[in-house]
């Protein structure tokens, strides 16, 4: 018998009496629609499925209360949560304004590697054929599809990153986020995005951090030393 079949057979023989799967609290409890920007072009059947599950909403409507629910409160709550995780959040009017902000924030950066069309930087990420080509990046600039007000996390995937290493090898990371693409909490976030749409998807809540030496919180352990989210008011 193969290892696979042996394991499955033993699991089948030993599994305790069935316990039912509980239903989760409903989606979009504020009644707001989840932002369309979160979804990519390719709508898969899984995404359609999770959309259909919004009918659970009424059942568990209460309980999972969070302060920021309505659309207008979300960017502020997001910024506060992100700062708590060691990141910073700055407003910009248009995506094209991001270049000036990056210059201002990182005047001494040699290599600014960008995966965002409106901000060319000194190097386009698409030019890197190999992740090792990104080892010298001072500032990486990428776009996120979604932000989460509860945690300050941004959702980036291989689609936007092109080469995933740009998110983790860059010394500093700048993320452009549409201010309308912020959901209240993590549960809503998982329902708004199609996680499996890309081979790599990352919720990044602040920069790399560690407390492994003397329980002292230090940013920039292995990945990015800083995370700056630029909240874009006007969509390109």
């Amino acid at each position, binding site marked *: 018998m193969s*290892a*696979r079949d042996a*394991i*499955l057979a*033993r*699991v*089948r023989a*030993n*599994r*305790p009496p*069935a*316990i039912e799967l*509980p239903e*989760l*609290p409903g989606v979009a409890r504020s009644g707001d629609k989840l932002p369309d920007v979160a979804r990519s072009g390719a709508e898969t059947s*899984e995404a359609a499925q*999770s959309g259909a*599950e919004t009918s659970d909403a009424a059942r568990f409507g209460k*309980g*999972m209360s*969070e302060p920021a629910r309505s659309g207008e409160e979300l960017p502020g709550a997001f910024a506060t949560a992100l700062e708590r*995780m*060691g990141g910073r959040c700055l407003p910009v009017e248009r995506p094209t304004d991001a270049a000036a902000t990056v210059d201002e924030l990182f005047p001494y950066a040699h290599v600014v590697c960008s995966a965002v069309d409106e901000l060319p930087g000194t190097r386009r990420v698409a030019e890197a054929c190999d992740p090792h080509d990104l*080892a010298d990046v001072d500032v990486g600039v990428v776009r996120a599809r979604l932000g989460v007000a*509860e*945690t300050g*996390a941004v959702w980036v995937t*291989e689609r936007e990153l092109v080469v*995933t*290493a740009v*998110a983790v*090898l860059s010394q500093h990371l700048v993320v452009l986020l549409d201010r309308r693409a912020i959901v209240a*909490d*993590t*549960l809503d976030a*998982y*329902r708004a995005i199609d*996680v*499996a749409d890309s*081979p*790599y*998807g*990352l*919720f*990044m809540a602040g*920069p*790399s*951090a*560690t*407390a*492994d*030496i*003397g*329980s*002292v919180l*230090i940013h*920039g*352990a*292995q*990945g990015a030393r800083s995370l700056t989210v630029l909240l874009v008011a006007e969509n390109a």
Partner: protein
Amino acid sequence: MSRSLPVRPDRRAAAFMADGDREPMHDRQLWDTRQARDALIAERLPDWEELRELASRVKEHTLTHLDDYLEQFEANAARRGTHVHWARDADEHNAIVGDLLHRHGTRLLIKSKSMLQQECGMVPFLQRRGITVVESDLGERIQQLSGEPPSHIVAPAIHQRVEDIARLFAREIGTDPDDHDPRSLAEAMRRSARPLFLRADAAMTGANFAVAQTGGFVVCTNEGNADIGAAVAPVHIASIGIEKLIPRLEHLGVFTRLLAPSATGSPFTQFTSHFHGPRRGGELHVVLVDNGRSERLGNEDHWRALKCIKCGACLNTCPVYRRGGGLSYEATYEGPIGVVLQPSADLARYRALPSYSSLCGSCTEVCPVKIDLRDQIYRWRRTVAEQGGPSAVERTGMRILGEVLARPRASRAVASAARQALERLPRATLYRARLNPWGRERELPTVPAQTFRQWYLEHRGGRRDDRP
């Protein structure tokens, strides 16, 4: 892993506690984490208890349908181009990983934290095959360079003082021995580790959650170290215990909200990374490992321990763990969850662990997936006792005590003798270490002027229900 000698956690703990300020610092840092958890929940997670209940039930549902979910996971992972392997035990896991690395000509492997790989003894196995293995998590790297196993599921080097780490780094990576600044020590390790990340031929990770619906898995870190390995090395191998399955993506919304608050008192892990198939230009392998899990599933007393999400909250709150340190367990898993998991791996070796607990139940209260840790520890104690557990002296003592307590007159006579002994015997006799090990760390109670029985007869003596 040695299977012969029983561990003696009390001895290791005594050495830890005798070593200067080590124990009070350890105790304080872990208790701070526990308090940070409490404050975060009180301030920001009003639905905490509801989340715990949901998480517990989702896990119990998954475990009671685990064969179905494993098959779903396998099919969906394969559809995305992930290679899925199955391993019955540690040896099979190591052989699969060893062969994969050999086929890719791997000389330098970068790995992030994985309790399962530690459980399998993977690193020494690979090193014997000539592969250099570098831990990418800072705490794990500190332990690797120290030649010690990790002492905490989440904070591997929590038992080390900053000056210990400063001395270690001075010796191993050439920092200034007088530099005791955690920031500059961490920076030195970042600079030392970066070239190794870039040279690695393969990356290994564990997984916090595996999603049956999509065939993907999630790795949570604060350093981003798992992501660097996976993003840079051409091959990524993830070792996943079969109990890590959850049914659907949306369930991540429950578990990721519980994990970081429980582990570190932070609202979320800095990096919550989702892997669904190989990245562009890369190769992705998953090894699904049983290693005793399917057997535990059939154990009515202990199957619920499989719900564990390895957050470490039960360690942070445990008064025994905080005082004695993680290395005293001499085990892969420490603290209350270690006491529950290790005896099934090797009862002869870990028979002392169930007694290495105060049964205060704090672990049960903080567990984010509601594992009945205290009750399981108690049940292990019973199992050890039934299998000839306590020493002959303890057994005889307990038997005599049982007979005395069953006879009111005899018990009163013994109590009276004990009072007189406490009052009259010289201290040197009362605290003789071999007769009274309890008294090594503690003062015996002072004898009150009146016994409870005397007080009771005096105050309630006339009541009808007064029986001697």
